[in-house]
């Protein structure tokens, strides 16, 4: 429904004058006010709005924290304590920013699983989906660098471990990995120099992210929103205008989410973090058990699953490289979902077999997250290896094969039919769809 002719009519003389010179009000009206939204969207569709709020909250709290933070190895740790103790409301801003990162990832994971369940990656939404994967990669890079800044033990050793991933390139070409790692570090080990540049990039990347989010919304508005039936918009009665219908619903979702956000920020601000990061970075002592932030755990579990043998297959010196490749592939493969899924039915609501595999995939991701938080020993390693295989099988086998063998359920003829069949099957619910009828 994107690209439909604009129905914006400026009312004031000034509005008309400005619209002929810079039609920004027209653009806002067409994209966020008069924009046709499927009338059957459920609360899972409010996560786009929630994520926008998360991004803006991180930028707002981040910019003010940067006014009090000092990116140097001698001052960083103390400057965070200074923010918590001395800066007016510093404790709150710092908690909002650190809890905000967790909330951002919580929302993005729900957003992504929503996309998987309702087939929001399928034609014509491939570019929208790929932009989303790029956003997730940028989010991960940004969050990783942000976690460095307090310069606690977890910060320091997290950076050491993650940047060392690139040294696996030495297995391909001797010296290449070391050169890349020393370039990232700006030295021969993680140091204040590394911290300094991570601060600069942690400031930069959210703005790059904002740019890609702009493209993401643009791509969404060209192809139109997906909906729980996965059907295209076919008639005006399938939609309601975005404002006030979708905006009001989004607001409910956003406020509910903010209640959870505030609860974490005010009552358990450190619950999602790691106590070791309240110990200043010490380059001579590695904490016995390094754990990344919870939102990296599934990918961390995949990385660690590749030990010297993987489910009986000896990997020898290639173990590290395999782990690194598997971890990056685990993210990149999501971008290929539009081409791996062979089913022509979008929504899993009408896909009896895929639905089960979808929930098993959710379970796989949660299980990997749990295993990532456990020490890499004994049964945990074997379990992580099995679930790593499950993770990739979902994309490489389940998606292509289930689409070919599955008989989908009967689809409703339109979004309108689907909505009305729930209310007894005939007539229009009073007052529910005032605006579409008027068109």
């Amino acid at each position: 429904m994107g690209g439909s002719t604009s129905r914006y009519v400026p009312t004031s003389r000034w509005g008309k004058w400005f619209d002929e010179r810079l039609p920004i009000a027209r653009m806002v009206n067409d994209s966020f006010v008069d924009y046709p939204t499927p009338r059957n969207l459920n609360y899972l569709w409010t996560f786009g709005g929630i994520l926008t709020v998360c991004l803006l909250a991180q930028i707002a709290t981040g910019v003010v924290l940067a006014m009090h933070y000092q990116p140097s190895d001698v001052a960083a740790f103390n400057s965070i304590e200074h923010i918590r103790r001395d800066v007016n409301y510093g404790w709150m801003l710092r908690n909002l920013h650190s809890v905000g990162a967790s909330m951002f990832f919580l929302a993005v994971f729900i957003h992504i699983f929503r996309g998987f369940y309702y087939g929001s990656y399928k034609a014509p939404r491939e570019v929208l989906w790929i932009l989303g994967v790029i956003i997730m990669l940028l989010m991960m890079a940004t969050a990783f660098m942000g976690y460095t800044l307090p310069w606690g033990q977890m910060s320091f050793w997290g950076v050491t471990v993650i940047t060392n991933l690139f040294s696996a390139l030495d297995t391909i070409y001797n010296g290449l990995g070391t050169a890349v790692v020393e370039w990232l570090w700006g030295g021969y080990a993680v140091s204040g120099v590394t911290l300094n540049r991570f601060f600069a990039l942690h400031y930069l990347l959210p703005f790059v992210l904002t740019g890609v989010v702009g493209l993401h919304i643009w791509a969404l508005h060209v192809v139109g929103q997906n909906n729980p039936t996965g059907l295209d918009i076919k008639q005006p009665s399938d939609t309601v205008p975005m404002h006030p219908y979708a905006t009001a619903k989004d607001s409910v979702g956003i406020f509910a989410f903010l209640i959870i956000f505030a609860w974490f920020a005010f009552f358990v601000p450190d619950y999602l973090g790691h106590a070791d990061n309240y110990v200043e970075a010490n380059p001579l002592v590695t904490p016995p058990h390094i754990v990344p932030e919870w939102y990296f755990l599934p990918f961390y579990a995949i990385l660690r699953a590749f030990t010297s043998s993987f489910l009986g297959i000896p990997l020898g010196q290639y173990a590290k490289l395999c782990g690194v490749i598997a971890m990056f592939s685990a993210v990149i493969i999501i971008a290929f979902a539009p081409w791996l899924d062979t089913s022509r039915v979008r929504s899993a609501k009408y896909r009896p077999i895929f639905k089960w595999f979808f929930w098993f995939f959710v379970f796989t991701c949660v299980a990997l997250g749990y295993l990532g938080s456990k020490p890499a020993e004994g049964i945990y390693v074997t379990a992580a290896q099995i679930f790593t295989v499950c993770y990739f099988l979902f994309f490489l086998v389940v998606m292509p094969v289930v689409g070919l063998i599955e008989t989908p359920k009967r689809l409703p003829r339109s979004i309108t039919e689907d909505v009305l069949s729930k209310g007894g099957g005939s007539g229009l619910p009073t007052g529910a769809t005032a605006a579409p009828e008027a068109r």
Partner: protein
Amino acid sequence: MTTEALEPNRRDFLVVAGNAFAAVGAASLLWPFIQQMNPDASTKALSSVEIDLSPVKEGQAITAMWRGKPIFIRNRTKAEIESAVDVDVKKLPDDNARNEGLTGDPPATDANRTVKGHENWIVLIGICTHLGCIPKGQAMGDERGEYGGWFCPCHGSTYDTSGRIRKGPAPRNLEVPPYAFETNTKIKIG
């Protein structure tokens, strides 16, 4: 007419030459923006350190810093040296000596990882070759793994008394930094 248009003419050459100059210009402008992130002059200046070994008794270990990296120096006992020498190098996960002081691809014998005449001293870069944690084994009460050398708590890599990888995900032996004995009790690293 059409055949004429397909023939490359002198103006096409100008376009190609112009684009080539622009590409070279862009690349040479980009290079300093990349190169600025490599180790700077002050970092490179910390290239060598001297360490006095006289207070380190047999069976003790010290950790020094060189280029921001911890350096493990251990005065090995007779038993530790014997267990390091008495190993079939071909059966090791990494059979390269990983000694920056030696050229070529020397095998990972204990002799290739120590200095002749000072076999009791093992000097290593104390960074696990997996993902860069500091292995345990320097302090007296530390767990040293089943080969009596070092044990990395991050992902369970186990090193022997010559710092060679024996078990776990690490791909290589602990590196031997370039160093030399200046006197019998003093080494210079770097």
